[in-house]
């Protein structure tokens, strides 16, 4: 009888241990994915209604706030550079030899015809600041057991009122994310796969971004190489490096 009482008393503790809070899950994701700096080469495969295009790029990133991307291929996009400093974004186009600041309505435009907008790139992903997170269930995704975490906006000033994340229970990495409109309509879906161990962290090598209101198979974002916590010269993140 005494043992039974002990077991019953321990159940909530065990359940808690198995079901971390949404906040904890987001913190663990950050621990796993966030880094001081990244240098990567990647390709973006855009599946349009009529054709598929592949764009190659090399990127340098410093936390969530600074990033610099140089497009390497195809010839049409080669030499285009993009600089993001906190909430500001500039693009250099070699054909016009001009630096353009992307702001206001232009931020909503598609990034090189992909399913991502410039605004999606500006998302600094500090989810805990803007959202309350709660675990609402679990599901198997790509043979991995996942928590389903629902994020509800704390304030009115966010792009998406509701988000849902499927987070790998053991690796603490999201495998799927859905972004919803206020009306509850699904607007965008992100799928992460080819999770690879890089150093002491798990990292997705492939992401598929899909605007759910648009036809087409979405945009694939494939990381060919990535290095974490490398020293990056400060001049990279200046407007001078755009030209």
């Amino acid at each position, binding site marked *: 009888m005494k043992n039974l009482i002990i077991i019953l008393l321990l159940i909530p503790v065990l359940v808690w241990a198995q079901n971390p809070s949404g906040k904890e899950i987001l913190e663990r994701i950050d621990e796993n994915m966030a880094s001081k700096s990244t240098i990567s080469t990647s390709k973006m495969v855009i599946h349009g*209604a009529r054709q598929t295009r592949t764009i190659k790029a090399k990127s340098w990133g410093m936390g969530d706030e600074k990033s610099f991307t140089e497009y390497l291929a195809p010839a049409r996009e080669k030499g285009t550079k993009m600089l993001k400093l906190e909430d500001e974004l500039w693009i250099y186009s070699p054909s016009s030899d001009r630096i353009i600041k992307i702001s206001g*309505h232009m931020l909503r435009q598609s990034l090189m015809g992909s399913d991502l907008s410039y605004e999606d790139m500006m998302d600094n992903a500090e989810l805990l600041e803007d959202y309350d997170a709660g675990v609402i269930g679990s599901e198997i995704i790509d043979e991995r057991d996942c928590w389903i975490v629902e994020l509800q906006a704390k304030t*009115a*000033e966010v792009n*998406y009122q509701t988000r849902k994340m499927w987070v790998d229970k053991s690796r603490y990495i999201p495998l799927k994310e859905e972004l919803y*409109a*206020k009306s509850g309509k699904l607007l965008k879906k992100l799928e992460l796969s080819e999770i690879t161990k890089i150093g002491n962290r798990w990292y997705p090598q492939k992401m598929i971004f899909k*605007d759910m209101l*648009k036809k087409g198979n979405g945009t694939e974002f494939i990381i060919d190489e990535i290095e974490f916590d490398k020293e990056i010269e400060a001049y990279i993140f200046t407007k001078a490096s755009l030209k």
Partner: protein
Amino acid sequence: MLAIKLAYRNLVGAGLRTWLNVIVLAFVLFMIIWHYGILDGWNEQANRDMQAWEVGNGQYWQENYDPYDFFTLEDSHAKIPEVLQKASSDGIVTPILISQASVYPDGRIQSMLLKGIDPEQKVIAIPGAELNIESEAMPAGRQEISAIIGKRMAKNCKLKEGDITTIRWRDVNGTFDALEVKIVAIFDCNVPSIDGGQMYININTLQEMMQAPNEATLFVIDEDYEMSEDISGWVYKEFDFLMTEMNEMMKMKKVGGSVLYFILMLLAMLAIFDTQVLSIFRRQKEIGTYIAMGMTRRQVVSLFTVEGAMHAILAVAVVSTLGTGFLLWLQSIGFTMPAGTDDMGIAIAETIYPVYGAGLIIGTSLLVFVITLIVSYLPARKISKMKPTDAIKGKIQ
């Protein structure tokens, strides 16, 4: 008087050569009157349609609103002022709320302006009453709202009445939202600026969708509205200001058209000039005889000048006898614009009915007459240098 009589006799005597010149001149005159009539008819129709469908008798704009800068749209809406609220209830002004949005017809994304209008309004001709089909503010469950679009928007998005499509927009806080809309009506109007890339829904629904209760971007005012005071935060735009672009374009069209008339007139004047030179060359004996019979050189020059200018008088006579009926017939059937003209972004009806004002007819006739007079005089000046004795002998001078 003698000069006129003689000139008339000589002209008629010249036969086919005279009538060839007269027909060319009459054609030019006819073309100018008809084309300017078309432009004036177009201008009148565009003014009428734009007033009825878009600009009303003037507008009040929220102070940040700039229709040429879409970046201003996010900040160009404000609470409806009391004085305009009252006028709106009286039906003499109508509010319009504007937001940027995207529509996804058949899975394609297209940017558009989402406009909220009062379904009961009668100030502009947009058939808002169609939005009352579902008597909505915001329907319960927020699944589907009704919308109306113009024929150009319907064509571009391949939408038809009864179709359901998705729209996405952001509220005043920047949060994305999306809903299904049902196209309840497609209206046909000649004003592309209220049609292409625009969708109309109930203003109450849009205010709720944008989280902007009782707000508007602009007001269209009726002729019964009386301006009384400045309204803080709102800027009055008078009718003429709102029509500036259209009027400028019509002016440009007239200038563009006048290049063609200049070329036509040049050809006609060249014919008259040649005729005059030929007449003076061939009729040297006649000129010598006139002078020998006592006419002064000036009188002879006048005779030949009047003779040339009479081509213009005959041309006016031809146009007013034969052309009037034709011009009136063209006015009754109108001029059908080529297919696709209404996609040029300007207010234009399928058929334009020319308007011939007295100013246009008299002004054009006078212009043709004066130019013909000048062109007739220039070769005739040579007569004053002729020696009458040599002229009688028919010696070439």
